[in-house]
């Protein structure tokens, strides 16, 4: 507890290039950008594959690759190939980490919609795009959001690796603290990452509340 008090109580930790606000902003930048890029790739792809049923193999491969892929190893590889200096080397492994949960959940969500419901939608005279946008997505939304939440939490937690390649973010505290045996720093950084993950979790709770129709969440409360 003392360590935390040391870390959070030290005014020096609240300002300057090594201060918490700036590190937090850097961390959010890596995580946010990666998540955004992953969404741009995985959401349309997941929707399309789920809707058309074509390319389902891609989803399976991606899900398996995700489990096998060592983020740190990928990071080192990218740095070796691209060099340091930009944030691109950090984004690539983080995007690779975030794509599978989004892709798999979006695909499963869309594909899992009751066939009768899909049938009824077409039978009413909705066109393919309308069926997807007005029926499948709203009904699959809890699962889609679950995928996004999983991805976001993983990315927030893993963005600490940026520090390995000389970039900022909350990982700096952890790496520097461990390297210099300043444990309050390391523990403080770790706590900040954990808090951030909790905040992300909370944010998705709110999103779920506002975006998912009560008609859908009403019968599948737990998720």
């Amino acid at each position, binding site marked *: 507890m003392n360590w935390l008090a040391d870390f959070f109580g030290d005014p020096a930790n609240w300002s300057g290039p090594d201060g918490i606000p700036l590190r937090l902003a850097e961390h959010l930048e890596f995580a946010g950008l990666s998540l955004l890029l992953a969404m741009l790739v995985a959401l349309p792809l997941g929707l399309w594959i789920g809707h058309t049923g074509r390319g389902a193999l891609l989803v399976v491969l991606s899900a398996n690759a995700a489990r096998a892929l060592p983020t740190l190893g990928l990071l080192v590889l990218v740095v070796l190939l691209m060099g340091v200096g930009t944030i691109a080397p950090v984004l690539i492994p983080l995007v690779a980490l975030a794509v599978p949960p989004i892709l798999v959940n979006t695909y499963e969500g869309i594909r899992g919609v009751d066939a009768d419901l899909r*049938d*009824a939608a077409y039978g009413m*005279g*909705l*066109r393919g795009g309308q069926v997807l946008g007005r029926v499948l997505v709203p*009904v699959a939304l809890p699962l889609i959001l679950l995928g996004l939440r999983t991805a976001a939490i993983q990315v927030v937690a893993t963005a600490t690796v940026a520090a390995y390649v000389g970039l900022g973010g909350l990982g700096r505290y952890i790496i520097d603290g461990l390297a210099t045996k300043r444990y309050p720093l390391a523990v403080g950084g770790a706590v900040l990452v954990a808090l951030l993950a909790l905040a992300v979790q909370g944010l998705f709770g709110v999103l779920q509340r506002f975006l998912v129709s009560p008609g859908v969440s*009403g019968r599948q409360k737990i998720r």
Partner: protein
Amino acid sequence: MGRLWQGGRAPAGDQGMHMITFDDVSKRYPDGTVAVDGLTLHAPTGEITVLVGPSGCGKTTSLRMVNRMVDATGGRILLDGVDVRTVDPPTLRRGIGYVIQQAGLFPHRKIVDNVATVPYLLGWDRKRARARAMELLERVGLDAGLAGRYPFQLSGGQQQRVGVARALAADPPVLLMDEPFSAVDPIVRASLQDELLRLQSELNKTIVFVTHDIDEAIKLGDRVAVLRVGGRLAQLASPAELLAEPADDFVREFLGRDRGIRRLSFVPGDGLRLRTDLTVPVSAEAASVRGTAEPWLAVVDGEGRPLGWVAREDLPDSGTLAGVPAAPYGAFVRERDSLRSALDAALLSPSGNALAVDGAGRVEGVVTRDELDAALARAAGGARG
């Protein structure tokens, strides 16, 4: 062609008599299954045509070829004289109401918006679409208070009514119904069937109704098409004709037991001769009616409503009929009920006679066993000739 898709009324004239025509229609699925084979069938405008047959005989396939949820591989289907294959499917479907077994309501939308689905698609403004939806909810017998609920908050029977309301929302001239009532319990099913008949008497839609339940087919159909496996038409007839003269053993077997009795449902009861001299008011003196030659008399109250039967031999020497215990009775509404109901009423009375009542439940007269006998003989003769 335009008028149909705008949800107008069925036009008069040649084609208007047969809103839907199956012209030598076949469907072979990609795996080689022949679900429908050379089906030729007319669904007359403003009538309920029921497709009935054992599981897998191609009922659903036939129905779905009309709104192009399935495309025929042979023949043509004409809707109001237009080959459906020439119409873009979503446009076609917006002009045809479609009701399926599981209702298929959109779970994320409130009931009112579910009903307004097609009006929204047709570009109606929100207010008009919702007003129309509310009107339809009432039409199908649902409380306006349900409009703001979500489908999961409704019972199966209520959901099915919403499904019907949704199909009717844009006032399409044609309704396709695929076993819409088979997932609810028998009591709810019967009330949904009655409701549909009531609605149809107001709306006069051209309805194609699929079921595997022959009793439902007979109850609802103006005409019943019995299909055999492989999608071949075994017989197309009115329910009464079907019961009287099944075309072959397959149809006979499919119709099941008690065909003779069930056929009586289609013989109107209003032709039965009534005796009005067998009714006595409850205020009458027992002694005054003791002299009658009839073994049983029907006792009615001051308003003419039946109280029951009294046997001549039970009549006391004094007092009014109010003091005499009345035996149970059966009654049928003469202007509405069938010979079957009359027979049923007779069987419920110890006298063996049926009470004929009017719509308000007042006794119009008595149908005696002899008269029923004669009516049954006439009905049986009709079956032969």
